Protein backbone atom coordinates (compact mmCIF):
# COMPACT_ATOMS: atom_id res chain seq x y z
CA UNK A 1 0.00 0.00 0.00
CA UNK A 2 1.33 3.44 -0.92
CA UNK A 3 0.92 6.02 1.90
CA UNK A 4 -0.96 9.25 1.29
CA UNK A 5 1.41 12.13 2.07
CA UNK A 6 -1.37 14.74 2.10
CA UNK A 7 -2.71 13.36 5.41
CA UNK A 8 -2.33 15.92 8.21
CA UNK A 9 -0.99 18.62 5.90
CA UNK A 10 -3.25 21.30 7.44
CA UNK A 11 -2.60 24.70 5.91
CA UNK A 12 0.40 23.30 4.06
CA UNK A 13 0.15 22.09 0.51
CA UNK A 14 1.98 18.88 -0.29
CA UNK A 15 3.55 18.61 -3.72
CA UNK A 16 5.41 15.80 -5.41
CA UNK A 17 8.46 16.41 -7.52
CA UNK A 18 9.91 14.54 -10.45
CA UNK A 19 10.42 10.83 -9.94
CA UNK A 20 14.02 9.66 -9.64
CA UNK A 21 14.73 6.08 -10.67
CA UNK A 22 17.33 4.21 -8.64
CA UNK A 23 17.72 0.53 -9.45
CA UNK A 24 14.40 -1.22 -8.75
CA UNK A 25 13.21 1.74 -6.68
CA UNK A 26 11.55 4.96 -7.67
CA UNK A 27 12.04 7.93 -5.35
CA UNK A 28 9.41 10.65 -5.33
CA UNK A 29 10.52 13.77 -3.44
CA UNK A 30 7.72 15.47 -1.52
CA UNK A 31 7.69 19.07 -0.32
CA UNK A 32 5.24 21.04 1.78
CA UNK A 33 4.66 24.68 1.09
CA UNK A 34 2.86 27.43 2.92
CA UNK A 35 1.70 30.38 0.84
CA UNK A 36 0.41 33.54 2.43
CA UNK A 37 -0.68 36.46 0.32
CA UNK A 38 -1.58 39.88 1.68
CA UNK A 39 -4.65 41.47 0.13
CA UNK A 40 -4.12 43.86 -2.76
CA UNK A 41 -0.76 42.35 -3.77
CA UNK A 42 0.81 44.13 -0.81
CA UNK A 43 3.14 41.24 -0.17
CA UNK A 44 3.38 37.65 0.73
CA UNK A 45 5.33 34.76 2.07
CA UNK A 46 6.23 31.37 0.62
CA UNK A 47 7.74 28.74 2.90
CA UNK A 48 8.88 25.53 1.28
CA UNK A 49 10.27 22.64 3.26
CA UNK A 50 11.15 19.07 2.41
CA UNK A 51 8.55 16.63 3.72
CA UNK A 52 9.84 13.23 2.77
CA UNK A 53 10.64 10.75 0.09
CA UNK A 54 8.08 8.31 -1.18
CA UNK A 55 10.00 5.15 -1.99
CA UNK A 56 8.13 2.93 -4.43
CA UNK A 57 9.24 -0.61 -5.11
CA UNK A 58 6.82 -2.36 -7.41
CA UNK A 59 3.35 -2.11 -5.86
CA UNK A 60 4.74 -1.37 -2.40
CA UNK A 61 5.52 2.09 -1.17
CA UNK A 62 6.79 3.68 2.02
CA UNK A 63 7.27 7.22 3.15
CA UNK A 64 10.65 8.21 4.56
CA UNK A 65 10.20 11.46 6.46
CA UNK A 66 12.83 14.21 6.27
CA UNK A 67 13.49 15.40 9.80
CA UNK A 68 14.76 18.95 10.27
CA UNK A 69 17.19 18.18 13.11
CA UNK A 70 18.40 21.79 13.47
CA UNK A 71 14.82 23.08 13.89
CA UNK A 72 14.01 20.37 16.46
CA UNK A 73 17.11 21.09 18.55
CA UNK A 74 16.49 24.86 18.34
CA UNK A 75 12.88 24.42 19.48
CA UNK A 76 13.88 22.10 22.34
CA UNK A 77 16.60 24.50 23.53
CA UNK A 78 14.27 27.50 23.45
CA UNK A 79 11.50 25.55 25.22
CA UNK A 80 14.04 24.44 27.85
CA UNK A 81 15.17 28.05 28.25
CA UNK A 82 11.62 29.31 28.80
CA UNK A 83 10.89 26.44 31.20
CA UNK A 84 14.16 27.15 33.03
CA UNK A 85 13.32 30.84 33.31
CA UNK A 86 9.87 30.04 34.77
CA UNK A 87 11.46 27.53 37.17
CA UNK A 88 14.10 30.08 38.25
CA UNK A 89 11.32 32.61 38.86
CA UNK A 90 9.36 30.11 40.98
CA UNK A 91 12.42 28.95 42.99
CA UNK A 92 13.57 32.51 43.83
CA UNK A 93 10.10 33.69 44.76
Amino acid at each position, binding site marked *: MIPNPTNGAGIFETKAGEEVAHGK*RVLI*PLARSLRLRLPGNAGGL*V*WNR*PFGILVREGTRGRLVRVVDATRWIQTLLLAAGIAGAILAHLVRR
Partner: protein
Amino acid sequence: MSEQSEMDPQASAFAAPANRAADVMESLISAADVSKVYGEPIRQGDTLILPAAEVLAIAGFGMGSGGGVGRDRQGTPQRGGGGGGGGGGKTLARSVAVIVASPEGVRIRPVIDLTKIALAALTAAGFVLASWRGMSKPKRFFAR
Protein backbone atom coordinates in the same frame (compact mmCIF):
# COMPACT_ATOMS: atom_id res chain seq x y z
CA MET B 1 -11.10 59.39 -27.47
CA SER B 2 -9.29 56.31 -26.31
CA GLU B 3 -9.79 54.73 -22.89
CA GLN B 4 -6.14 55.36 -22.02
CA SER B 5 -6.40 59.11 -22.47
CA GLU B 6 -9.62 59.28 -20.42
CA MET B 7 -7.89 57.67 -17.46
CA ASP B 8 -7.08 59.84 -14.48
CA PRO B 9 -3.32 60.71 -14.58
CA GLN B 10 -2.98 59.64 -10.93
CA ALA B 11 -4.58 56.30 -11.67
CA SER B 12 -2.35 55.70 -14.68
CA ALA B 13 0.74 56.60 -12.64
CA PHE B 14 -0.43 54.13 -10.02
CA ALA B 15 -1.18 51.33 -12.49
CA ALA B 16 2.40 50.64 -13.58
CA PRO B 17 3.90 49.99 -10.10
CA ALA B 18 0.76 48.03 -9.15
CA ASN B 19 1.22 45.78 -12.18
CA ARG B 20 4.91 45.40 -11.36
CA ALA B 21 4.04 44.40 -7.77
CA ALA B 22 1.54 41.86 -9.12
CA ASP B 23 4.25 40.40 -11.39
CA VAL B 24 6.69 40.11 -8.49
CA MET B 25 3.98 38.45 -6.38
CA GLU B 26 3.31 35.93 -9.13
CA SER B 27 7.00 35.03 -9.33
CA LEU B 28 7.11 34.78 -5.53
CA ILE B 29 4.15 32.40 -5.46
CA SER B 30 5.76 30.31 -8.21
CA ALA B 31 8.65 29.73 -5.79
CA ALA B 32 6.40 27.23 -3.97
CA ASP B 33 7.73 24.38 -6.06
CA VAL B 34 9.37 21.07 -5.20
CA SER B 35 12.28 21.84 -7.55
CA LYS B 36 13.25 24.71 -5.20
CA VAL B 37 13.47 22.30 -2.24
CA TYR B 38 15.33 19.35 -3.74
CA GLY B 39 18.55 19.71 -5.68
CA GLU B 40 19.67 17.77 -8.71
CA PRO B 41 20.31 14.08 -7.89
CA ILE B 42 23.99 13.16 -7.69
CA ARG B 43 24.90 9.60 -8.74
CA GLN B 44 28.09 8.02 -7.46
CA GLY B 45 28.33 4.36 -8.37
CA ASP B 46 25.35 2.55 -6.80
CA THR B 47 24.59 5.49 -4.54
CA LEU B 48 22.24 8.35 -5.27
CA ILE B 49 22.41 11.55 -3.25
CA LEU B 50 19.57 14.05 -3.17
CA PRO B 51 20.12 17.31 -1.26
CA ALA B 52 17.11 18.92 0.45
CA ALA B 53 16.77 22.51 1.64
CA GLU B 54 14.20 24.76 3.24
CA VAL B 55 13.41 27.88 1.22
CA LEU B 56 11.61 30.92 2.60
CA ALA B 57 10.70 33.86 0.38
CA ILE B 58 9.13 37.05 1.77
CA ALA B 59 8.12 40.19 -0.11
CA GLY B 60 6.25 43.36 0.76
CA PHE B 61 5.11 46.34 -1.24
CA GLY B 62 3.61 49.68 -0.50
CA MET B 63 2.47 52.50 -2.69
CA GLY B 64 0.52 55.67 -2.50
CA SER B 65 -0.61 58.60 -4.52
CA GLY B 66 -2.18 61.94 -3.96
CA GLY B 67 -3.31 64.99 -5.79
CA GLY B 68 -4.84 68.36 -5.43
CA VAL B 69 -6.03 71.51 -7.15
CA GLY B 70 -4.33 74.84 -6.67
CA ARG B 71 -3.84 78.18 -8.40
CA ASP B 72 -0.71 79.41 -10.10
CA ARG B 73 0.63 83.02 -9.89
CA GLN B 74 -1.82 84.16 -12.51
CA GLY B 75 -4.70 82.70 -10.52
CA THR B 76 -5.43 79.97 -13.00
CA PRO B 77 -6.59 76.72 -11.38
CA GLN B 78 -3.99 73.98 -11.75
CA ARG B 79 -4.31 70.34 -11.01
CA GLY B 80 -1.38 68.20 -9.88
CA GLY B 81 -0.59 64.93 -8.33
CA GLY B 82 2.03 62.37 -7.69
CA GLY B 83 2.64 58.94 -6.41
CA GLY B 84 5.30 56.61 -5.29
CA GLY B 85 5.92 53.15 -4.12
CA GLY B 86 8.48 50.77 -2.88
CA GLY B 87 9.04 47.23 -1.95
CA GLY B 88 11.45 44.78 -0.50
CA GLY B 89 11.96 41.12 -0.12
CA LYS B 90 14.28 38.41 1.01
CA THR B 91 14.88 34.77 0.21
CA LEU B 92 16.40 32.48 2.78
CA ALA B 93 17.62 28.98 2.09
CA ARG B 94 19.02 26.44 4.53
CA SER B 95 20.21 22.88 4.00
CA VAL B 96 18.01 20.46 5.94
CA ALA B 97 19.09 16.97 4.98
CA VAL B 98 20.74 14.78 2.42
CA ILE B 99 18.87 11.74 1.13
CA VAL B 100 21.19 8.83 0.45
CA ALA B 101 19.80 5.95 -1.59
CA SER B 102 22.05 2.91 -1.81
CA PRO B 103 21.38 -0.78 -2.53
CA GLU B 104 20.99 -1.23 1.28
CA GLY B 105 18.12 1.25 1.47
CA VAL B 106 17.09 4.90 1.62
CA ARG B 107 18.46 6.91 4.53
CA ILE B 108 18.02 10.51 5.58
CA ARG B 109 21.16 12.22 6.84
CA PRO B 110 20.24 15.42 8.66
CA VAL B 111 22.33 18.55 8.17
CA ILE B 112 22.89 20.16 11.57
CA ASP B 113 23.63 23.89 11.67
CA LEU B 114 25.84 24.28 14.75
CA THR B 115 25.80 28.10 14.59
CA LYS B 116 22.00 28.19 14.87
CA ILE B 117 22.08 25.66 17.71
CA ALA B 118 24.77 27.61 19.58
CA LEU B 119 22.71 30.81 19.21
CA ALA B 120 19.59 29.02 20.48
CA ALA B 121 21.57 27.64 23.46
CA LEU B 122 22.89 31.12 24.30
CA THR B 123 19.38 32.57 24.06
CA ALA B 124 18.03 29.83 26.34
CA ALA B 125 20.84 30.41 28.84
CA GLY B 126 20.08 34.15 28.64
CA PHE B 127 16.43 33.51 29.57
CA VAL B 128 17.43 31.51 32.66
CA LEU B 129 20.16 33.94 33.76
CA ALA B 130 17.96 37.00 33.28
CA SER B 131 15.16 35.37 35.26
CA TRP B 132 17.54 34.29 38.06
CA ARG B 133 19.33 37.66 38.33
CA GLY B 134 16.12 39.62 37.98
CA MET B 135 14.71 37.88 41.02
CA SER B 136 17.85 38.37 43.15
CA LYS B 137 17.98 42.20 42.72
CA PRO B 138 16.65 44.16 45.73
CA LYS B 139 13.42 46.08 45.17
CA ARG B 140 14.57 49.68 45.79
CA PHE B 141 11.37 51.29 44.64
CA PHE B 142 9.48 50.36 47.79
CA ALA B 143 12.43 50.41 50.24
CA ARG B 144 12.24 54.17 50.94
